[in-house]
């Protein structure tokens, strides 16, 4: 379970990508726009939101696979800034990717894939030591030692995801960004891999940033959950709190859109069906990014971005009109034609 100490603290993180919008003209695409949060040691922070809202970019920018446009990344009490700090950080923080099919080199054997980070960081002295470590990593993720000399393409999706995780564990990381690690897997296999993430966390005292679009999976695995919309964080709270009492209008509609695998509940649920599409991050609305789809939007929502603030202990939310939102009952069903 989560301790009290912050392992990671993110302050005002921004990641802007320059995008061509004509001859010699670029415009910043604000993929991540002023995001702040903390992750405690041993905890799993879930990160959810619709496609393109900036989840992967948050993960990659924290690991500085992208150079942050601005903001601070503080790991274990120390800002990650200099080259030396970054090199040290990279040994403690790593990433597991979504697609078990394309993220592994099909021409490499399983043992070479898993040992690659060991090779890169020079983490063994002898061949025998290398092999021993590879077998240990394979046993962590439930792969047989006979699999070591086979090629990645001979494995099923679930097995490939295990290989990817063994590889991520090679550097003995403390913190792992898991970017949609079970999304490409069949339900029956998904459960095996989710359990494995749980077990490894306990055994190796890992801390996760767990990105996923399946909200039932995120709820299962996370201690706390953060919701993003168009590059901004709009809500963050304990997993159960956010499920039972979402405060932000976007979180409310996102959660009510999830089809629950229970026919009786599905029949009785009143859903909030959002109008329209997510705007392009190149043309994000002024003020609150959600205002073009928000049923509670008022004039001032176009004026300024609401502050992301702690409204109750540990419950952060960014909305100008929380009082009105909470006084409306959940039974509101909104439908309409698509614009934009």
């Amino acid at each position, binding site marked *: 379970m989560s301790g009290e100490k912050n392992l990671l603290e993110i302050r005002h993180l921004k990641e802007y990508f320059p995008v061509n919008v004509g001859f010699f003209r670029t415009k910043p695409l604000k993929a991540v726009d002023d995001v702040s949060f903390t992750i405690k040691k041993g905890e799993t922070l879930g990160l959810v939101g619709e496609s393109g809202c900036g989840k992967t970019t948050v993960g990659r920018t924290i690991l500085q696979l992208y150079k942050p446009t601005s903001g601070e990344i503080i790991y274990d009490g120390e800002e990650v800034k200099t080259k030396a700090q970054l090199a040290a950080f990279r040994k403690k923080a790593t990433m597991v990717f979504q697609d078990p099919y394309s993220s592994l080199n099909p021409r490499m054997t399983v043992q070479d894939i898993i040992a690659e980070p060991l090779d890169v960081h020079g983490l063994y002295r002898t061949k025998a030591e290398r092999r021993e470590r590879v077998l240990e990593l394979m046993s962590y993720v439930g792969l047989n030692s006979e699999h070591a000399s086979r090629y990645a393409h001979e494995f099923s999706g679930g097995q490939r995801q295990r290989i990817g995780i063994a590889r991520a564990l090679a550097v003995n990381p403390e913190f792992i960004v898991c970017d949609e690690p079970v999304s490409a897997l069949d339900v029956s296999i998904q459960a095996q891999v989710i359990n494995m993430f749980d077990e490894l966390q306990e055994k190796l005292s890992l801390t996760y940033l767990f990105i996923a679009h399946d909200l*039932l999976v995120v709820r299962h695995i996370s201690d706390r959950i953060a919701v993003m919309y168009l590059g901004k964080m709009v809500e963050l709270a304990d997993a159960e709190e956010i499920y039972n009492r979402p405060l932000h209008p976007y979180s409310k509609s996102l959660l009510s859109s999830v*089809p629950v695998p229970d026919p*009786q509940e599905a029949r009785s649920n009143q859903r909030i069906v959002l109008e329209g599409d997510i705007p392009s991050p190149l043309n994000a609305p002024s003020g609150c990014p959600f205002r073009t789809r928000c049923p509670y939007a008022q004039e001032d929502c176009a004026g300024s971005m609401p502050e992301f603030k702690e409204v109750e202990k540990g419950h952060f939310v960014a909305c100008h009109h929380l009082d009105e939102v909470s006084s409306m009952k959940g039974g509101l069903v909104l439908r309409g034609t698509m614009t934009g």
Partner: protein
Amino acid sequence: MSEQLLEVNDLHTSFFTDAGEVRAVNGVSFRLDRNKVLGIVGESGSGKSVTAYSIMQILAGTGKIVSGSIKLDGRELVGAGEAVMKGVRGNRISIIFQDPMTSLNPTYTIGHQLMEAILLHTNRNKQQARERAIEMIRLVGINEPEKRMKQYPYEFSGGMRQRIMIAMALACEPDILIADEPTTALDVTIQAQILELMKDLQKELGMAIIMITHDLGVVAQMCDEVIVMYAGSICEQGTADEIFYHSKHEYTKGLLRSIPTAENNGQKLEPITGTPIDLLNMPKGCPFAPRCDHAMKICLRERAKRIQINEDHQAGCWMNERPDSSGEEAS
């Protein structure tokens, strides 16, 4: 009495590949009534799409219906010939696919593609087809239809493209809409829009829908009846309530146990062990036996026949026929 539209009987469809015969659909039978939404669930490769493509007779190169019968309004479609199928596809039965981008031509306007589909399947003239296309765009909830007619697919979001696909599929008011993972590529809020739209249109137009999905949530929300497939066969079939609350097949039970829910929150999930089936190496008896915790000796030898559990439910699992004294669990 409900009106029967489609009846599939003991359908076998195979792909004849270099590695051997892939029995993608292996004895599938079901009926579909007007006004019903029938869900087909199962893991990837279980034969859901091939079942759909068999009904439409749009199988890829080496694929072939080996045996069985598919009747529409009592009329046999298997072996009826391409001329008959041309009259069925788009007119009586339409299909929409998972990825709308691959089914729309990027080089033509939305209007052109919609009108082409309408002209192909009806005897409307160009002006009437245009009017119908505009009406359909409006029907699927996209504003400014006249303007939209002139736009290209890339100018549409994923959700809007899927709406256009639905418009195209429904333009000729088919009796049956087959939706093959229609929302799998979409975000949940957009998925909610599309599912609501499909439900509304189904009621409004009085058609039947075959909803193919791997998402049990989508099934629970949309379907009156559910078919659960594994390795090309139907494990069980029944009303949504029967399947979710009184499942009578070990695969379905395993599937339902393995998904995160409010109930198992904070506990370990119970996965189905083992690896997915390899259709080139099918076991002799129950195809699920290698992964089934309750497999008995008879399961390894012989497949259980599908039996009627009650009037709303059929299942094919030896657990339902087990003599009380047996206790012969396989190792």
